[in-house]
């Protein structure tokens, strides 16, 4: 009983975050990844008010809600509204950009250190089942219940509520019926954001310690809770939060704290498999975040044979020993490793129209496979790399299988959960993966008896692998498999009607993608010589998506270009030290805003057709990019 209570108290926090997320999904059909950052902003403002200035808690709550509501308006203006009616993936990516920007600025403004939060609440507490119940526990519980009821009433009985519901059902129709959809969305966004701020203050008061960097983890748990309850359902958000809290408490109590992530994302995956729309969700959200909207609109740039040769020659420059300094070569290796991971994304997104937010998990899988095979089993390097790729392929296919019948935001969340769960297993399986300690002293790459230890040799290895895989991807996309994939991407129903076994081809795409990601991970592990679960954080999955999308998903060259810009660019920003992350987020936001189909795609063609067909019929265009 005491464990249940402890879980409920913690689940309250998730419920508050999930409420805001669900509201935004309902109105704008966007998973707002910046919700966790708003939480952190709220927490810091709350700290400033109560602990620094000594004001009472209710003042802190009001100020934090005002600040985050304002930020919510900004997020909507910059990152969501411009993409209304377009591919939701663009809005999702730009909220990820906002998340990076907000987290970085929060850290720049307040400094990174942890600090205590003094609430000034009366020091009365009582005992229940041996647990001390503090005033803040009661405040949080009441707040989330009151909020849920209040919001539900607001949506059901007021004009604003009707407008919100109409907008979320059919944006275009609502607009034609005279609903000011933009204003409704802005208001709903501000409301949801202020809920994030409120959650920040209250949860900070609950844990009594806060830091500006804690938004990310809590944001992910909030997404898990919202999905568990059913995206877009307010009651579901609260119920999902509380259930997640209780299950976590029991799981952690049984298997220890390190199992927390496995439990969170494992539960999420189970729910998605058994009851895809969540516990209380309606089956209303139909729009695929990726398929048929984003990539068909752009056309691949054809590169003549001499262009390819030139690119290969340029890429081969760092292989000349001693020509470039070690640092530049090292950055080159980083760029290629990321390009390989992005290449695996290209297969999924550009060819089969699927989105994975958990690609770091597959990369981790390959890395661990190589480390164990070469270090413990004593296998030679090249066979180990191949096996690592195969393991990636098998696991990706198996894990992806139950996701086929998901639609809307759910497949993306399923991949997010899968990726996070894989890393969480690596953090827990002490006897095999070394748990949090990781695996050290992984043997260096050795090809035909030669240890590749010099910078140029290490670069040469990853470069040659990149060439081989790019060649394979090119061949695949030329083959009938590639054609079927693109048919599924452009219109899954039509593809099925034309007799394509869509699930099989989708799972083939996941398998091929897993193979490439696994090989990327294997090279990663051999190059680092040390891996642990933190080498492949959830943030890395986002980076992989970003790299792939920015480069353009239609061609392997896009993955390389994206990686050169984002990974190489990140190195340039090293000069501006702590403001670097901020700049990174800003550039990302701008690129998504003005070049969403990626750098390496034709777009004059796209613009011409867009004018002719109107902005919402992108899916009708023929993506003849073979």
């Amino acid at each position, binding site marked *: 009983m*005491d464990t249940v209570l*402890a*879980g409920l*108290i*913690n689940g309250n926090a998730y419920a508050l975050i999930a409420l805001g997320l669900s509201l935004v999904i309902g109105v704008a059909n966007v998973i707002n990844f910046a919700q966790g950052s708003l939480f952190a902003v709220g927490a810091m403002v709350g700290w400033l008010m109560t602990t620094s200035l000594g004001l009472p808690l209710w003042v802190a709550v009001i100020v934090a809600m005002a600040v985050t509501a304002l930020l919510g308006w900004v997020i909507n203006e910059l990152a969501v509204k411009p993409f209304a009616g377009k591919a939701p993936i663009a809005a999702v990516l730009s909220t990820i950009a906002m998340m990076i920007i907000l987290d*970085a600025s929060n*850290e720049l403004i307040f*400094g*990174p*250190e*942890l*600090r*205590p939060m003094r609430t000034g609440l009366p020091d009365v507490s009582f005992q229940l089942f*041996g*647990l*001390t119940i503090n005033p803040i526990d009661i405040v949080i519980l009441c707040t989330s219940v009151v909020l849920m009821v209040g919001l539900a009433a607001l949506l059901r009985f007021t004009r604003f509520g009707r407008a919100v519901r109409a907008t979320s059902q059919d944006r275009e129709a609502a607009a034609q019926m005279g609903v000011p959809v933009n204003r409704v969305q802005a208001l709903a966004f501000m409301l949801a954001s202020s809920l994030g701020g409120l959650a920040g203050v209250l949860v900070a008061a609950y*844990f*009594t*310690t806060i*830091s500006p*960097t*804690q938004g990310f*983890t809590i944001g992910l748990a909030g997404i898990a809770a919202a999905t568990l309850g059913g995206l877009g359902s307010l009651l579901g958000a609260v119920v999902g939060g509380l259930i997640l809290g209780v299950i*976590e*408490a*029991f799981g952690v*109590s049984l298997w*220890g*704290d*390190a199992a*927390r992530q496995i439990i969170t994302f494992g539960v999420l995956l189970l729910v998605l498999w058994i009851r895809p729309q969540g516990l209380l969700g309606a089956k209303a959200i139909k729009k695929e975040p990726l398929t048929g909207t984003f990539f068909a609109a752009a056309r691949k740039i054809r590169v003549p044979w001499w262009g390819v040769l030139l690119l290969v020659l340029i890429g081969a420059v760092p292989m000349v020993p*001693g*020509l470039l*300094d*070690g*640092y*530049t*070569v*090292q*950055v080159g290796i980083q760029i290629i490793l990321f390009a390989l991971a992005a290449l695996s994304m290209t297969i999924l997104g550009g060819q089969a129209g699927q989105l994975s937010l958990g690609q770091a998990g597959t990369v981790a899988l390959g890395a661990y496979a190589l480390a164990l095979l070469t270090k413990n089993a004593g296998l030679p390097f090249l066979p180990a790399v191949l096996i690592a790729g195969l393991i990636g392929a098998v696991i990706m296919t198996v894990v992806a299988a139950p996701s086929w019948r998901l639609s809307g935001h759910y497949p993306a969340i399923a991949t997010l959960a899968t990726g996070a769960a894989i890393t969480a297993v690596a*953090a827990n399986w*002490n006897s095999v993966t070394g*748990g949090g*300690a*990781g695996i*050290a002293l992984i043997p260096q790459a050795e090809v035909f008896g030669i240890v590749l*230890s010099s910078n140029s040799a290490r670069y040469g290895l990853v470069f040659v692998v990149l060439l081989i895989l790019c060649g394979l991807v090119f061949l695949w996309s030329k083959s009938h498999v590639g054609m079927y994939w693109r048919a599924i991407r452009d219109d899954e129903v039509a593809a099925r009607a034309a007799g394509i076994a869509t699930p099989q081809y989708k799972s083939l795409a996941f398998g091929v993608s897993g193979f490439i990601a696994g090989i990327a991970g294997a090279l990663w592990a051999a190059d*680092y*010589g*040390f*891996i*642990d679960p*933190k*080498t492949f*954080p959830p943030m890395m999955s986002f980076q992989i998506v970003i790299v792939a999308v920015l480069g353009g998903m239609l061609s392997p060259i896009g993955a390389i270009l994206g990686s050169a810009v984002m990974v190489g660019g990140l*190195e340039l920003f*090293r000069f501006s*030290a*702590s403001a*670097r992350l901020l700049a990174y987020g800003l550039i990302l936001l701008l690129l998504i805003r003005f070049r969403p189909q990626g750098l390496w795609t034709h777009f004059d063609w796209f613009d011409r057709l867009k004018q002719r067909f109107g902005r919402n019929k992108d899916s009708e265009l023929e993506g003849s990019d073979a």
Partner: protein
Amino acid sequence: MRPSIRKTLAATASAVAMLAMAACGQDAGPAEGGGGEDKATSVTFGVVGPKTGDQAQYGEDWQKGFDLALEELNAEGDVEYKIDFQDSQGQPAQASNIAQKFVSDDNIYAAMGDFSSATSMVASPVFQRGELVQLGITNSHPEFTDTGDYIFASPVTQAVEGQLQADGAKALGDKAAVFYLNTDWGITTWDVFEDRAAENGLEIVYSSAVEEASTDFKPLLLNAKNAGADVVYMLTYYKTTSLLVQQAGDVGLEAEFGAVGSNYSLEFLELAGDAADGVYMATTFFPASEDPEVKAYVEAFTEKYGFQPNLFNTYAYDGVKALAKAYEESDGTRQGLRDSLATSSELPSIVYGTYGFNEERRIDNPTFRWIQVKDGEFVEVDPLVE
């Protein structure tokens, strides 16, 4: 290209010097005079560490220690010392890039960092291949220096600390609940702790790894309570430790509390508040010490920043001072700095007193002091372990 040419030259030079010494017999002194006259007057040490991200606060702690050390060094000597602190976000990928950057940069004479051993050890092969000293100032992983002879670590290994903690726990009670960070550091310390407990008769009734990012530990503490623990030992950093002691109060867990020495910091007192009272810890660094060097350091630090230094501040301060000393004793090359760091027995340190590195490029058993939090302050107590 330049570094490799210089390396070849240096190698040739040292070979010639050795031949010359061999020819002259025993009376030629150490290579001190070698390049002495053209030693650089501006020396930069690279630092790879977290300035943003989850561990950013520890990077800030370092920065304060570095700044004070630089101020003092530059006020007294004719060599101008500088720090090039590059942000790794605590991420291995970044750390190995930065390491490569330092290796390629002729102005860097030695490097320190990263904060966690896991991240540092990804960078270590790069430093070793590039023949640039990497001094781990907060790295206590037992295998940390195994990568090669350019890798040094100033903290004591967890083998030493883990044993001490287990003996301390035994002195506080018979049934222990242990929480340890799920990191290389936490797990290794816990392994040593567990082995030692089997020897000294301490019964471990409950143990669990905890994540650095977690904030809710009540389910675990309830388990510890139900298992009847009379001593709780925390192999965690201050962020996690303060949450543990606070929530232990909430679940009504009554026991003696002990924690590793790195919790010895004002941040712990501030974060944990009243819940910190009674917590024991063992540390090599105690600011209230009567030792004149420690006193002078604590005074200077407090004057500059307005509060007392913690262990991470002091590790950073010591790191700069040790590298500067090694540079002074060297011939002004990277190689020379490595050699004098390895052989010198006169390295200055606030944490340990003057020391030298052993064969494994680590520090032998130093003296620990036991302290306890009483009424919101650290007080030295009788040692729990002799």
